[in-house]
């Protein structure tokens, strides 16, 4: 459970920093009058949807970190046999990176008022994400064909579970991306769409980051790092 505790500690630092900006030491019983008379404490200037996405990313991170916590605890049991990672995953990773880049492109284009660029970026990003999901399914098939079934070893179970959870999050993202693209397609003003495009891009970068962490974990690349952390903690 040390992973989730570390994650919560990071969140606590962020929350503590934010709270420290909110004049929690104010004495409200002495402060009568319009809020403008007192510094701080107004609503954030960020759009609500962006704050909402931020909160959602914190929740999704907690979910993935908890899976990782469970992974690292289950890993210590003697029956764990790390499974060979299909090479296809490297290709998929590349596609997911491209997808993220495309959405970043789209986001930049939105701020340059380049409607065509936005559309190209959205479509390319969406297509790459669909290819990634297809690739993940293919990787499952390859593992299944090689006899690595979901229940035959906990390492396999975690592999299927983590990739599935990540894939479902990406699928959810595709719904939002689809709605944004449809609106763009129907000729919504680019100024109205900037926020949606930006939120899609942020979500995509987040899922890319999650995937890179999961990949490191599943391929065992991060084992050394994890061991160092453990030694530091114990």
């Amino acid at each position, binding site marked *: *459970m040390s992973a*989730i*505790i570390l994650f*919560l500690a990071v*969140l606590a630092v962020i*929350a503590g920093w934010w*709270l420290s900006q*909110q*004049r*929690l*030491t*104010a004495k*409200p*019983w002495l*402060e*009568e*009058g*319009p*809020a403008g008379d007192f510094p*701080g*404490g*107004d*609503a*954030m*200037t*960020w*759009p*609500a*949807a962006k*704050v*909402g*996405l931020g*909160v*959602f990313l*914190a*929740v999704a991170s*907690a*979910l993935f970190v*908890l*899976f990782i916590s*469970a992974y690292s*605890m*289950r890993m210590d*049991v003697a*029956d*764990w046999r790390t499974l060979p990672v299909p090479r296809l995953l490297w290709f998929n990773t590349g596609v997911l990176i491209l997808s993220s880049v495309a959405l970043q492109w789209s986001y930049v284009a939105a701020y340059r008022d380049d409607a065509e660029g936005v559309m190209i970026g959205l479509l390319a990003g969406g297509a790459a994400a669909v290819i990634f999901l297809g690739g993940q399914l293919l990787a499952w098939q390859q593992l299944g064909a090689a006899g690595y079934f*979901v*229940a035959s070893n*906990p390492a396999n*179970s975690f592999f299927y*579970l983590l990739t599935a*959870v990540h894939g479902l999050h990406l699928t959810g993202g595709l719904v*939002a991306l689809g*709605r*944004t693209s449809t*609106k763009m397609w129907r000729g919504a003003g680019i100024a109205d769409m900037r*926020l*949606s495009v930006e*939120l899609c891009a942020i*979500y995509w970068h987040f899922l890319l980051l999650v995937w890179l962490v999961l990949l490191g974990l599943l391929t065992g690349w991060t084992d050394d790092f994890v061991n160092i952390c453990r030694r530091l903690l114990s």
Partner: protein
Amino acid sequence: MVDIPYEGIAGTPPAEVPDVELYHPRSWWTRYVFSQDAKVIAIQYSLTASAIGLVALVLSWLMRLQLGFPGTFSFIDANQYLQFITMHGMIMVIYLLTALFLGGFGNYLIPLMVGARDMVFPYVNMLSYWVYLLAVLVLASTFFVPGGPTGAGWTLYPPQAILSGTPGQDWGIILMMSSLILFIIGFTMGGLNYVVTVLQARTRGMTLMRLPLTVWGIFTATVMALLAFPALFVASVMLLLDRLLGTSFFMPSLVEMGQLSKYGGGSPLLFQHLFWFFGHPEVYIVALPAFGIVSDLISTHARKNIFGYRMMVWAIVAIGALSFIVWAHHMYVSGMFPQFGYFFATTTLIIAIPTAIKVYNWVLTLWRGDIHLRVPMLFALGFIITFVNGGLTGLFLGNVVVDVPLSDTMFVVAHFHMVMGVAPIMVVLGAIYHWYPKVTGRMYNDALGKFHFWVTFLGAYLIFFPMHYLGLLGVPRRYFELGDTSFIPSSAHSLNAFISVVALTVGFSQMVFLFNLAWSLFKGEASGGNPWRATTLEWQTPETPPGHGNWGKELPVVYRWAYDYSVPGAAEDFIPQNQPPHATQLIQGAAS
């Protein structure tokens, strides 16, 4: 949640909007059923939670019938008893209390108290309710599937939860897990709304330190729930896979019905860590909204500002943070590394400090207050006493050496019913009486309300005080019947029968409450907009019950904190939050 339009998307919403921009449902369906109005959603949440809560209440009667009069009722067998226990616990903790405090009170009170027109993502908010309803229906359907609901205990510990021999192994456990997963998805949608509304949609002048403590409590509890429920989600998904696909996340190798099972190597302890990582914050997810609400009830009905407002806010935040590092105090006897226990015992005892601060501040708020013993106030006082009682036995159980012999006895049952059963329910009932005039525009019947309070309050003590004693004797929890056991004297059996009679009485007295609510809805006196002469914004709405958009054309502007009661020199003993300073002075001038 990406592209839901929200008026005034950057920063504070506009103070004044033309009438056409207010939310107006177009048909009966969108007004009362698929409504995006937080107030309607709140009522939907509350009614659904209460309905499934009544099922759990009936289950507790059945359990008490069996415990009080073993062997008398042929329609209760051992398997059913375990099913009743499981469903009673799960429904009460998650589907009733969590849903009612956050989905019910959160939806109704947050937008009104912070001076917003609605939640920031109304569509997602509506979706949240419908997913919750689906979760409740899936849960309720387990009563009708082959094998019935799961009897694994509300903690659903593997391996027994998914092995044959545990009732509900076929369908019950699968549907239970599915229902929990749905509940968490639905809650996350709602939770995002509550948090972002508090952060983004506060009206002009509503700084964080001017928020009523109710909002602080619900806000902090929601943040905690958003971070804690994923642990239950992870545990549920993995247990579901163990059951359906034969994975071994949690399942060790074992012999089942004389045969070696297909499982091997899994860690039941891992499940317990995940479950209690959710389970302990859950206690405070229920408690913090109660703390917040009770602070407002006491301040309003004692006509005094809350004592130590800043300390109350800090204590809420501190309890929220600390509650994430105490979870393993539920696992002293689980076989985990023993020294962990002492770390968690220490953090558990530390959490008593901010909690005690809150209790002292409630009592000091009452000190020399102008106390009006109205029904909401009675319930608030009942809460304080009950919470102190339950909290003190929590200090017993938080210590490893005391917990080990008391673990799995009726003492634990008595403790958690006092501290997170009776105490929060006291607040729920008090809060319903308190805000009933705002929600319906009518006053409840006072005599029936007082009768309801005294029966519930005294009854709860008659039920749960003797139960501590049973626990000290060693009477185990979750047992269908005690039989002839040498260390349990026959007086314990009589005591059990007594508890059952009281429990049934208290249970039926809740019908008086339901009758009162229904009767007053049609026959109650008109209450006016602010019958308690309270300061917070929800009492200052132009209409009662508040209309769509809450505030008419213009949002209120806040000039003061939420607790200006009995201010010296003021004409009245309360000053609403939206009353400008010069207006107060004018009144003061007129009075002098």
